[in-house]
């Protein structure tokens, strides 16, 4: 037994080629070595021959494919039967600061007609319109396209099919040869007119756009024509996909081979709070007005409302003639974003800027007093204060609080228009603020230089009226909100709407991004305390703007901007009452404000066209808007109020 075991132990490994040793003694040895190099060389040479033969055969095959039969394959290459068509990618979404959709895409189910698949086109269309009515307008268009296009090109019969429509088409499919249902996308604006001016709208590209970017020629591709849609158009567009189809020699599609869907455009998140925007719109109701609410520390625009508004989705499918005529005839200009393109004289809201110019030039100190007898004579012309019998002796604080015209006539006279214009520009008035919207206007702060460059003479009286924001001075509501923000923070904040593009936070959202204006804190404080008095002190001009809150106060300034010069005779007759004027001649009502007074976070500007009385109309509106803003507090929230709960449900 043990012998057998021993022999196995010795024999098997030895047969496998191992030298078996025990206690250092060789007990099993592999068979004697034989020269293996000879066999290796012979067999390797055989393998090498085979390798050369194999590659030689492949070389010969290559010759046949490329040269001998090459002509045949080259001809095939010429009219390769695969054609590639590009596909429009879904356009990027636009959302508010809490991610609520302001612009998205809607699946558009459409019924198409393939003329070659039916023997009787009119009969098919008749049966179709029995199921889903076609208006004569559509029917005429289909007939026109039928004559024009080849029989295998699909023609759109009906857009925006409902689920029921599709079910009816499916059920009746045997009666509808040549009708097929296809899917595309159209732009959807779920908030409609609420954010129309900010978001803008899209339309099919025209020939000039296509020349710049051929991708825009794709069916279904849209180009931004207004608002954020236009400003961020390139980011929103996305990357087209492609579909490969087998086509025959006349180009008819036989089947689809490969499909690569496009990449959706970037999502653009705005700083706008949709809830606040809605609330502001609700307060304004049907007046022709505009309002801007900003985060005054970093310049984020939280609400930008311009009324009346319009439905942006009408542009995607083409605006009807009647609708267009109605919009353009409306004197309340629904298509214009008044917050950036509406130009208004700032009226008394301009006074803090004039005061700052004087403080900086040294022509006025916060304690200087000026007497207001109700009028002032400059260069032979008498300029009146709005208070017929005058305010008496006033310092700056009181000048702003009572909005005394004579006080600022005098300040403007002392300071000069160039210094006033520089101060106004520093606050953002009459400048291009660079907000991400097309068609914004810069407005104007007139100076003698500007007047002379247009071939006119600058009168001393021009400076006087400019001192109360009348005359040639023209600003936009957005500039007014920026102006209030800059007074409140002393920083050169610029208004902006874009918070994130493709999930990347924009650097402008950081308050430290904005440099100091370089104005002394004492001078800014003088303006702020004057504006505080306007709202909160007894006999201020805007008591209706007082917030119904304990410990949170708002500072503001009213402004009434005349649109027609009031003649002295009329004013002196004592019968002047602007409320009795026709609507289009009434003064605009303006109000600028910021809150909370002791730690400013929000600034707002409202302009009510021909609103007549700023203190009675604009001030309470601004108060309500600021109340909504403070209640919602969008700058300190991560979700819209109620959003978490809604998501949970």
């Amino acid at each position, binding site marked *: 037994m043990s012998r057998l075991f021993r022999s196995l132990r010795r024999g*098997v490994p030895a*047969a*496998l*080629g191992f030298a078996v040793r025990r206690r250092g003694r060789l007990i099993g040895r*592999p*068979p*004697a*070595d*034989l*020269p*293996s*190099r000879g*066999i*290796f*060389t012979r*067999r*390797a*040479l055989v*393998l*090498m021959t085979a*390798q*050369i033969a*194999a*590659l030689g055969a*492949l*070389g010969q*095959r*290559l*010759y046949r*494919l*490329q*040269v001998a*039969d*090459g*002509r*045949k*394959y*080259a001809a*095939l*290459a010429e009219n*390769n*039967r*695969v054609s*590639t068509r590009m596909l429009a990618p879904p356009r990027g979404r636009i959302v508010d600061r809490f991610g609520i959709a302001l612009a998205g895409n809607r699946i558009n189910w459409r019924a198409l007609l393939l003329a070659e698949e039916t023997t009787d086109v009119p009969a098919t269309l008749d049966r179709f319109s029995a199921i889903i009515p076609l208006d004569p307008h559509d029917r005429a268009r289909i007939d026109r396209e039928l004559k024009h296009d080849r029989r295998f090109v699909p023609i759109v019969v009906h857009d925006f099919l409902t689920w029921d429509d599709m079910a009816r088409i499916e059920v009746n499919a045997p009666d509808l040869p040549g009708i097929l249902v296809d899917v595309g996308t159209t732009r959807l604006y779920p908030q409609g007119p609420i954010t129309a001016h900010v978001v803008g709208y899209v339309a099919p590209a025209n020939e000039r756009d296509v020349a710049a970017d051929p991708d825009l020629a794709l069916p279904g591709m849209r180009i931004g024509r207004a608002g954020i849609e236009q400003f961020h158009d390139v980011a929103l567009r996305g990357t087209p996909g492609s579909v490969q189809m*087998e086509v025959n020699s006349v180009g008819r599609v036989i*089947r689809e*081979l490969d499909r690569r869907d496009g990449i959706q455009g970037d999502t653009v998140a705005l700083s706008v709070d949709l809830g606040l925007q809605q609330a502001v719109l609700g307060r304004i109701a049907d007046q022709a007005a505009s309002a801007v609410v900003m985060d005054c520390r970093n310049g984020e625009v939280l609400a930008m409302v311009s009324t009346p508004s319009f439905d942006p989705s009408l542009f995607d499918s083409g605006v009807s003639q009647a609708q267009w005529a109605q919009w353009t005839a409306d004197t309340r200009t629904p298509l214009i974003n008044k917050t950036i393109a509406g130009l208004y004289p700032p009226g008394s809201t301009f006074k803090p800027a004039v005061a700052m110019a004087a403080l900086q030039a040294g022509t006025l100190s916060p304690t200087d007093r000026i007497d207001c007898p109700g009028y002032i004579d400059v260069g032979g012309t008498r300029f009146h204060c709005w208070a017929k019998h005058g305010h008496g002796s006033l310092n700056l604080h009181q000048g702003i609080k009572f909005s005394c015209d004579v006080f600022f006539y005098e300040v403007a006279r002392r300071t000069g228009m160039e210094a006033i214009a520089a101060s106004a520009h520093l606050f953002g008035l009459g400048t291009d603020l660079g907000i991400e919207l097309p068609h914004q206007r810069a407005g104007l702060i007139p100076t003698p230089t500007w007047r002379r460059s247009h071939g006119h003479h600058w009168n001393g009286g021009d400076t006087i009226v400019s001192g109360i924001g009348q005359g040639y001075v023209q600003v936009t509501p957005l500039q007014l909100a920026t102006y209030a923000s800059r007074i409140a923070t002393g920083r050169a904040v610029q208004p902006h709407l874009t918070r994130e593009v493709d999930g990347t936070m924009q650097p402008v959202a950081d308050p430290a991004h904005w440099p100091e204006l370089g104005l002394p804190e004492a001078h800014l404080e003088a303006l702020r305390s004057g504006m505080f008095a306007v709202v909160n002190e007894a006999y201020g001009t805007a008591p209706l703007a007082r917030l119904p809150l304990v410990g949170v106060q708002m500072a503001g300034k009213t402004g009434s901007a005349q649109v027609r010069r009031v003649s002295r005779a009329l004013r002196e007759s004592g019968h002047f009452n602007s409320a009795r004027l026709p609507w289009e001649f009434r003064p605009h009502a303006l109000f600028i404000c910021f809150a909370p007074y002791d730690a400013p976070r929000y600034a707002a500007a409202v302009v009510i066209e021909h609103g007549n009385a700023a203190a009675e109309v604009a001030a309470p509106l601004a108060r309500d808007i600021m109340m909504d803003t403070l209640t919602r507090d969008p700058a300190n929230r991560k979700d819209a109020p109620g959003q978490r709960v809604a998501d949970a449900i």
Partner: protein
Amino acid sequence: MITDKRLLRAEPSFRVLAKLWRVSWLYVLLICVLGGVGYGALYSAGGGSAKPFAGPQSLRFGLGLVMMLGVAMVPPGALVRLAWPLYAVSLGLLAAVLRVGHVGKGAERWLVLGGVQLQPSELAKIALALALAAWFHRAGRARMGNPLFLIPPALMVAAPVALVLKEPNLGTAVIIAAVGASIFLAAGTRLWQVALVLLPMPFLARIAYQHLHDYQRARITTFLHPESDPLGAGYNIIQSKIALGSGGMWGQGYLHGTQGQLNFLPEKQTDFIFTMIAEEWGLVGGLSVMALLLVMIMGGMLMALRCRHQFGRLLALGISMNFFLYCVVNLSMVMGAIPVGGVPLPLISYGGSAMLTVMFGFGLLLSVYVHRDVQFGDNEA
């Protein structure tokens, strides 16, 4: 000149500089030329841009070159000791990839290790050549005649073949089996034993066909009748033939191959890169690349013949056969001579895993050449 005597005296730790002197720099130059051809082709496949293929590939090539020279310094003794662990690891990875691997394009499986994609079947070919060379290097004629001695190496071949078949990757399984068979043959297996294994193969193939996946059967049928399905499975072969034909004798010109640049050619940066070269450079360019490949294969075989120990001879032969099979399978595939299967053209096709294993193989080849005169094992010196 360094004489053999001095080398032998310096063994086993003879200096790196002396070893570098003995590296076949001509062969390294050939490798670099082939790498350059690959860079040019990938530059064209990227639409005339180093992105996205040529740039990353040249980086890998540089890494591979350094690794190759490093491996060339390893003496045969260490390689033998390395052979078994490496073989075990490659089997382990093959088994792992079946469980957790990612499947792409129907068949190729890879693992992701530390962000690097790894195809274990690539490594398995090299590891098998090493292990078989280590097994056979002491075997004399008598032992080769003993069937018992041949059973373990046969199992060594069968294990990775079975695992790769299970992936399932028919092309690679055939390459692994062929590499193993060539080493068996060169080691001196009796011809009647070879015949005994090869003769039943047609019957086994028939049985295997019954167990093939549908897509693999489709490849075989479309290979036999490509026109039967011109836009489905036969699409690749037909497009490749059209591209070759449009190249003609002198080619369409670099970066101007219509079929390749217009994306009619599928997988032009990987499997079908040779088609793109032949379309742009014509028959002249295609044959030049094939001649270059042949010179490299023959170079490897000559290194095997020149080596004085059986381990080196078998290892060099296995590596060369592997490289040869890669080339032949890929070229046959793009010319429509065999069914399509994801086998890249070594050093030219885009892909990191294949590039690095091919360079590792060249490192072993150069190591054999560097240590060609070293006395090793019980073979004649």
